[in-house]
């Protein structure tokens, strides 16, 4: 006899045979022995009905050899099946969350879905799992004020509970998908993946329903590795996408702010140039004064343009350093000489002192970008002079070689100390951030640029008001390199986070 195919199915309570024209069945099964009473029919409609029933069972069954190897190897093979009954879906959903040991990934398609899951206690259950069993819970969901509130309250009460019992360790993370549904394909199904082992995906048939049972359609459960892994990968790419989207939004906002402030700053000197130009013809007697005003503002505009360009380069990681070996001592001495000349020319009553605490034949060898370091020293000296207005005040520059405590490398510490008006307490916290200034001629970008340059050379920079009460001291460090290095370019890394002085 030739056997076509054998399949396995659980739960059949009776034997039956169906052919093209006939149907036969034992009425009652008794162990393996068929009961003498049988049901027979050759009525067409009954035979067809039984054929339909067989087809359904056949489709649901698994190949016999799969079942045999499952029995032989003592493992349950992976399965994927469809569940139509909403109550069974709900029970399975809750059971899966409760059984989670390591992690739960959940994607919710709509705010309403979130609210439904909250009503049936899923959100609370997830927060509990994170809190009490340290399950790593990750949720992707659209959010609004209502969901934010629910989450805040649920998390707060749960965290309070947790604090009472033991140390604080929370593994709950939720990201908001507030991107339009066209951009994300997952907008109609809820996907839950537990412990990288099983997944449950269910459709919503009517999102307006508040009740889970009424809203849910059919579900697919799977513990088949390829299926579960596919859902994990969908989850992870969405998670990352949301992350990138958030970063992009922050970056976009910062850029808009920068452009807004930069344009404001550029309009200010432009207004002065335009205004003086308009008035000059009508007021020849004030011509000299107005030309000076135009020239002063033109220089300010030029400086601002350069600074904005530098900041743009720093922020986009495209400010190249052209490093070479040079002696910092000479650079500082030149800068001081320049500024002393300026002080004399402007008839300012300021003393400018330089003190290099050196041993015999000591020098300050640096491997860096000479022009950029010059820019830093000039920026600090210009600032010191600008904020030191009273007569007889002193600006003292000192340089000192020191071992850097942790690395045992040598560095130079340069301090520029003035007896001027000091750092305004309002500005102090954001001294080294962009557009922090109270000065008319400043761009508010100089210290941000200087600190970026110093840090790109492996140094540090900070500022403080002098403890004795008058003026401020700006200090920077740069690593000393005595070896001849190859001339090379490196890129200034973008400053992030805490740049405050």
């Amino acid at each position: 006899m030739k056997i076509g195919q054998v399949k396995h199915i659980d739960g059949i309570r009776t034997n039956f045979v169906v052919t093209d024209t006939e149907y036969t069945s034992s009425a009652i099964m008794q162990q393996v022995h068929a009961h003498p009473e049988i049901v027979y029919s050759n009525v067409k409609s009954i035979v067809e009905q039984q054929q339909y029933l067989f087809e359904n069972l056949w489709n649901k069954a698994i190949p016999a050899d799969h079942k045999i190897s499952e029995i032989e190897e003592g493992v349950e093979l992976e399965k994927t099946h469809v569940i139509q009954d909403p109550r069974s879906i709900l029970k399975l959903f809750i059971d899966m969350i409760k059984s989670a040991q390591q992690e739960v990934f959940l994607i919710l398609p709509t705010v309403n879905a979130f609210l439904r899951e909250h009503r049936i206690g899923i959100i609370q259950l997830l927060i509990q799992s994170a809190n009490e069993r340290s399950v790593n819970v990750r949720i992707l969901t659209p959010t609004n004020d209502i969901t934010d509130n629910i989450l805040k309250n649920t998390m707060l009460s749960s965290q309070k509970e947790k604090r009472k019992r033991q140390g604080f360790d929370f593994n709950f993370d939720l990201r908001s998908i507030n991107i339009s549904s066209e951009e994300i394909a997952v907008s109609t199904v809820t996907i839950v993946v537990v412990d990288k082992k099983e997944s449950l995906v269910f459709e919503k048939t009517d999102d307006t329903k508040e009740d889970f049972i009424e809203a849910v359609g059919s579900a697919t459960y799977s513990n088949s590795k390829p299926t579960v892994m596919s859902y994990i990968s969908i989850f992870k790419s969405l998670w990352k996408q949301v992350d990138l989207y958030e970063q992009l939004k922050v970056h976009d906002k910062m850029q808009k702010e920068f452009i807004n402030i930069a344009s404001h700053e550029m309009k200010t000197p432009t207004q002065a140039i335009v205004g003086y130009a308009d008035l000059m013809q009508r007021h020849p007697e004030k011509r000299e004064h107005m030309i000076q005003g135009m020239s002063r503002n033109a220089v300010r505009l030029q400086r601002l343009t350069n600074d904005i360009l530098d900041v743009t380069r720093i922020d986009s990681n495209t400010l190249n350093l052209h490093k070479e070996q040079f002696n910092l001592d000479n650079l500082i001495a030149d800068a001081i000489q320049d500024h002393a000349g300026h002080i004399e020319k402007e008839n300012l009553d300021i003393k400018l002192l330089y003190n290099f605490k050196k041993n015999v034949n000591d020098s300050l060898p640096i491997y860096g970008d000479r022009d950029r370091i010059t820019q830093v020293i000039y920026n600090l000296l210009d600032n010191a002079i600008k904020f030191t207005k009273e007569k007889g005040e002193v600006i003292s520059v000192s340089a000192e070689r020191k071992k850097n405590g942790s690395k045992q490398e040598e560095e130079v510490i340069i301090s520029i100390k003035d007896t001027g008006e000091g750092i305004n307490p309002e500005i102090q916290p954001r001294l080294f951030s962009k557009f922090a200034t109270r000065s008319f001629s400043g761009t508010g970008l100089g210290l941000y640029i200087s600190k970026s340059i110093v840090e790109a050379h492996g140094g540090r920079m900070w500022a403080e008001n002098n403890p004795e009460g008058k003026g401020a001291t700006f200090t920077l460090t740069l690593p000393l390199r005595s070896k001849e290095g190859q001339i090379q370019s490196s890129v200034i890394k973008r400053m992030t986070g805490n740049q405050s002085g």
Partner: protein
Amino acid sequence: MVKEKKKKILVVDDEPDNTSIFSIGLKDGGFEVDAFTDPLLALSKFKSGNKEYDLLILDIKMPDINGFELFEKIQEIDDKVKACFLTAFGEGYTEEFGRRFPSSLNVSFIRKPIRVDDLVKKVNEIMVNSL
């Protein structure tokens, strides 16, 4: 013929070049002008005066108190006084303005940079409208 009394304007801008230019320009245009670079000084001048100003021209971004805050304080003394804000910002300020002065009719805006003649023209328009 009775000579018409000159209209009086208070200019407040923390940029000395701007106060200087606006003062000269507006005086040329036939106005009497008091100008301040320090908004707090301007406020105390206003307090000591007798509601003599027909118009305030105020910069928005200033140290200590900004143009909107200054106007609020001045309104406590003279709620009829008109103000014209000078702004070098793009669009951002309008939201804050709407929030602070939800029903203010005696307020207008001038965008910097502005040519001196255009400023005088704009101020004349405001003065005519307020008659």
